[in-house]
């Protein structure tokens, strides 16, 4: 299989996933999109092995490693900070009372609805992809991907 065919298949899978996302919402079954996503990613990994002109050498591996490392270094802090806050919100953790503990601890006003939490987390995940692409471009440049020669 050629590289371009592989990219075309990825595009088709992405469109299918968007459709399944929408359908999952219509039938109120999140499990459908969750399983579909896992199957799609596994499928992409399997198809990738069939690509003949996608040669990956040690420099490519190094670029990928560095990009993933930097992405994770930035992303996990932001994602964890937001997720911890969101979980606190979902648990409706009370603030520490200023005086003696009362029988009914004060309930925080809902700053983040579960719906908003889901959207923000999905947004952060999408942002991670852009972050990864950015780091990948940076490290590709650093390790000589854009170098030209007289040959």
């Amino acid at each position: 299989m050629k590289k371009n065919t592989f990219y075309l298949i990825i595009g088709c899978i992405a469109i299918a996933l968007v459709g399944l996302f929408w359908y999952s919402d219509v039938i109120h079954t999140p499990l459908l999109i969750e399983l579909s996503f896992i199957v799609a990613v596994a499928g992409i990994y399997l198809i990738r092995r069939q690509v003949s002109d996608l040669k990956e050498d040690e420099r490519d591996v190094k670029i990928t490693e560095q990009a993933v490392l930097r992405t994770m270094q930035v992303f996990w802090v932001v994602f964890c900070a937001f997720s911890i806050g969101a979980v606190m919100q979902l648990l409706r953790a009370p603030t520490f009372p200023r005086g003696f503990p009362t029988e009914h601890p004060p309930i925080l006003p809902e700053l983040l609805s579960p719906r908003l939490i889901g959207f923000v987390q999905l947004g952060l995940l999408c942002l991670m992809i852009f972050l990864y692409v950015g780091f990948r471009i940076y490290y590709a440049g650093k390790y000589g991907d854009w170098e030209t020669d007289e040959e």
Partner: protein
Amino acid sequence: MRNKIKVFRAMHDLTQEHLAQVIGVNRQTILAIEKGKYVPSLDLAFRIARYFGVSIEEVFTYEDEENASQIK
């Protein structure tokens, strides 16, 4: 790390593409090594030296960053 891959290529009348194919890497990797943008692994360095039939020291010369900056 400095290297003489370009010199050895010229001596053997090899293109980057051909060397890359023989060594089993992409052409861009050979170019990046030649330009000093990428330091190859020990395994790759040995494969390159072995292909030219010379020792690794003849192709690659270690140069720490202080010396490199002094030379520049």
